[in-house]
Structures are given as C-alpha cells and as structure tokens.
C-alpha cells in the first residue's frame, strides 16, 4: 500500500489557523519562540496585531492565555508538545482548566518522529497529561486533510482543547474536504476479525498492516480515533463487539495514552483480547523519525505481528 506523502500536520495547522483568523476576530495567538516550527508564523504574518511571540517562557505564556480567555478572547497557544505540556502543566491545570477557561493548546513535534533532536524535544507523555485534565478535548490528526477538518472545530468547544501536530510530512489517508468530527472516530476500513485503533502518523501504518493481514486472509477493521477525549465509546465498542479483538497503536508511551483509555473502556464494558503497541517504559533517542518509529516498534510490521498474536 503506497500513500502519497502530504504536508506535515503542523503546516496544515498553520494554514488552517491563518484562515480561521479571518472568521474569528477574537482569536489571539501566542507562541514561545517556536513560531517557525509550530507554523503559527503564518497567522502572525497575516494578523500581526493579534499575535504575541512571548519568547522562551511557556509557563508565563499559559498564564497570559488564561487572562486573555477570562476576558472573552480565544487564545491559541503553541510550542513543541514537550515544552507546552510539561513546562506549563500546572499553569494549564490551575490557571486554565480548573476555572474552566477556554484556551486552545496546539503543540507540534508530538511523538518521537521529530527525530534527530533527541528525547528532550520529543513528546511521549503529552496525551496522558492532557487527557488527565478534566473536560480537556484531546485530538491527534493523521494528515493534512484531517488537520484542516479538525482545526476550525476547536472553536465549537467551550472547554479547552489540545491538538497535537507532527514534524514530518505525513502520508495522506483522507480526501481533501473530508468530513471529520471531533469526538467521532472514523472507521477507515471495515473488517470482521480484528480492530486496529490508532491516531496520528500511525493511521497509515495501521492501514498498511491491515493490507498485509488481508493477504493472509484476515479481515481487519481500522479505526482512526483522532479524538482521544471525548472518546467515541459507541464506535469503539461496536467495532470490538463485531471483531472480538483489538490492537491499539499510538506514538506515545504505553502509560496513560489512547491505548489506556480504550483498555479502560473495553475492560469495563466488553473485554476482548487486547494488545497495545506504544513506546514501552523508556525515552527514545536521536535518529531519523523513520528509524525511531521502527526501532521503537511502531511501524506496520509490528502492528501486524501484534494482530497475528491475537488472531492465532
């Protein structure tokens, strides 16, 4: 299975945010000296009076956003996923989420596919941290079209949101103009023997794994769970009931991410044989993004192998 390689989701986000600026005059964008990398510079070029590059100070940036939000503006706050979610977690918690303010956090370089910079610039805890904040919406789009579809919907939520984008160019799995909905998981391929649930860059890997398994006469369903929270319980349970086996694959460590959320859902409602593919209890390292996805066991052969384990 060959996918066309599209834009990085961070690039698609930069464009989508810039376009959103036309529609909503209450959007104010903050970035922590990474606007070239997070792509908020596109918004900054078009709306310089609504953009603040606050420098390298994530904690202060999130506090500023809280103040802007409590006055009725809608701040979109960006940095790398590692810095935004780790360095400003308490400010998110106490200044933003606890008082139920509405701030949109959009962080790039999610996962390990950022590559050569190494572990400190990668982010394998962000989904766990963000999902642990009450009412926080948590999204991980797979490609440029998904990013364009989901970004404007952040405005429809009254709670704070976290959207994770990625550094590398992403394989295209959706059509332009695709109708995705925050909170609704997308069944990308129907099957009856096993379900693979995933998000982000690994959606293409899961589709490839399903294709490989089809050649072995297994019928595999693939679900893009681009919204980790609120979790689309209905779609996931229906699929598990149909296939009776679930593999989750995510570019995140295994503790507290999408896989944990789905294991909880299934464990409480409909236990089925289950396998989670994620980064085991370790940090990754420097290497190309492709190498790291492979070395840390997140590519299609590993997903297919996990599925075979459950199918046999």
């Amino acid at each position, binding site marked *: 299975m060959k996918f066309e390689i599209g834009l990085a989701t961070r690039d698609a986000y930069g464009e989508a945010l810039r376009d959103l600026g036309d529609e909503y005059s209450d959007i104010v964008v903050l970035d922590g*000296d990474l606007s*070239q990398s997070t792509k908020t510079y596109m918004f900054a070029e078009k709306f310089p009076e609504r953009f603040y590059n*606050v*420098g390298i100070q994530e904690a202060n940036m999130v506090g500023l956003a809280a103040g802007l939000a409590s006055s009725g503006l809608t701040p979109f706050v960006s940095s790398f996923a590692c*810095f935004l979610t780790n360095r400003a977690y308490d400010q998110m918690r106490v200044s933003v989420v606890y008082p139920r303010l509405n701030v949109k956090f959009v962080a790039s370089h999610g996962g390990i596919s950022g590559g*050569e*910079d*190494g572990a400190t*610039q990668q982010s394998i805890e962000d989904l766990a941290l963000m999902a642990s904040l009450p009412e926080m919406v948590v999204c991980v789009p797979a490609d440029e079209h998904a990013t364009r579809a989901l970004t404007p919907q952040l405005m429809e939520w009254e709670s704070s949101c976290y959207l994770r984008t990625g550094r590398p160019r992403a394989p295209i799995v959706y059509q332009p103009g695709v109708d995705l909905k925050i909170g609704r998981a997308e069944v990308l391929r129907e099957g009856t023997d096993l379900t693979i649930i995933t998000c982000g860059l690994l959606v293409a890997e899961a589709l490839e794994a399903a294709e490989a398994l089809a050649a072995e006469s297994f019928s595999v369903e693939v679900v893009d769970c681009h919204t980790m929270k609120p979790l689309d319980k209905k779609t996931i349970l229906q699929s598990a009931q149909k296939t009776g086996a679930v593999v989750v694959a995510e570019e995140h460590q295994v503790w507290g991410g999408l896989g944990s959320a789905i294991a909880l859902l299934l464990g409480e409602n409909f236990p089925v044989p289950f396998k989670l593919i994620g980064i085991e209890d370790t940090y990754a*390292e420097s290497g190309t993004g492709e190498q790291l996805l492979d070395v840390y066991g997140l590519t299609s052969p590993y997903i297919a192998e996990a599925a075979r384990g459950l199918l046999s």
Partner: protein
Amino acid sequence: MKLEELKLLTYDIRSDIVEMIGRAESGHPGSSLSMVELVTALFFEIMELRPDEPDWPERDRFVLSKGHGVPALYSVLARAGYFPLDKLRELRRLGSPLQGHPDYSRLPAVEASTGSLGQGLSISAGIALSACHLDKNFHSFCLLGDGELNEGQVWEAAAFAAHHKLSNLTAIVDYNKFQLDGPVDEIMQMEPMVDKWQAFGWEVQEVDGHDLEQVVEALHWTKDSDHLPRCLIAHTIKGKGVSFMENNNKFHGKAPDQQELADALAELRKARQEVAG
C-alpha cells in the same frame, strides 16, 4: 596551553562543529559557533579535570544549559581526550552517545541532561551546593543562551544562588543577541542585562566572548570569588567564524548543505593558516 595554541584550537573546533552538523544533516550551527571560545577556555584553561577519569569526584563541573549548542561541547570533549575524535561523526545517529542534546546517562563528562531551556542554572546551583555538603572545592559552571534567560526558572536559580552565597557557581551568558525566531531585543528584551544579574545579587563582568585573553581572565575572576556567585556576560556573534552564518539566524537550527559545508571548512582553514603564520 599558550594563548596562540588555544586560538588555533578554536578553528579546529569550529571546523568540527560545521562538519559534524553537516554530516548529521541537522543541528544548530549558529548556536554552537558563538560559544566556542567560552568552552575552549573552560576545558583547556580554567577547569580542573581528568579526562581519563571523567567521574573524578574533585573535578569542576560544566553544565550546558543551552543544550542545543552541544556540538561545540562534544568537539571540546573529544579534543580534551574524553573520547576519540572520530566519534564526532556519530552526532545524532541512532544509538550514539552523542545525542542531539546532552544526555547525562549516555556520555560521561556530560554533567546534566538539557534541551528544555531554562533548567541548567538550577542544576548547576545544586551542584555548587553539593560541594559545600561534601566539603569539596570544585567549581560549578553553567553556560546559558540569552534567549534562554526568558525562562523564569533561570531567575529563580539566580535568586537562590545569591541568597545562599554560592561563590563556587559561575553563570556564563552567551550573549549572541539572537534566539530562535529572531533578535532577542525584538522577541523578549533582556536588557539591562548587567543590572538584572546585579539586582539578583550577582557580581558581573562583561567581555568580548571571542577574545580568548579576556575570556580566560574573566573566568579566572569568576572562579576566584569567595562570597557571591559571579556572572560573565560574553558578547558574542551567532555563527562566529563562518562569514555566511554570522548574524544569520537562518543557521540557528539548520545544517549547512554540501556546498555550504565545503565553503565553511575552506574559510576556517584559511583563517587558521593566517593565524598560524
């Protein structure tokens, strides 16, 4: 080492930096080139070290808080004898101890894992504090970026260090006037720089960070303190030594391509020859 030899060494280190980053096809050349004289002076003139015994308990400690400048540190460590020079080829390679940012657990002589800016001075203050507890005489050095000073944690550490009179702690600011998205004075003004550190209770000197004689002398001064932590504000040029990288923030985090690498190495070779006479 004689000053002339140190000077020659800085050309070799600059060549190492552009070559490593060029080969890795990623990294931060501008940020590494601005700090060369600072780490050269530290490792070859100022610090008490035993490269063949990297965890010698009495050694002076160096924390690279602006972790993205680590190619400069790797080159200095290799040239000081911590590991063979040809290991520099492994920068940013899968499995290499020469990670994209300093990794304490993979490479002896790296005293702290950094890469999330703003954390190093706290670690260095902790190290300085440990010397008091252990009744040892080692000195703790920390190198920070000017943009990095945006982070509040730096100032928390600065207040702590002055309050506890950590005279065995030195902060060095690589004041190259740029951060990632542009000039520091456009993004987050840090002036008046000297007044800030003084107001936090530090003694401060300013130097030309590319004048080795000044740097060495000032670092001796910071090490000599017996009552307060001292800070060296080193005025530097981002990308120093490679004309098309100097003050060109495009090379903050972008590797030179093949042609640029060849040009950079040729320029450094020629400049070295002129100094060597």
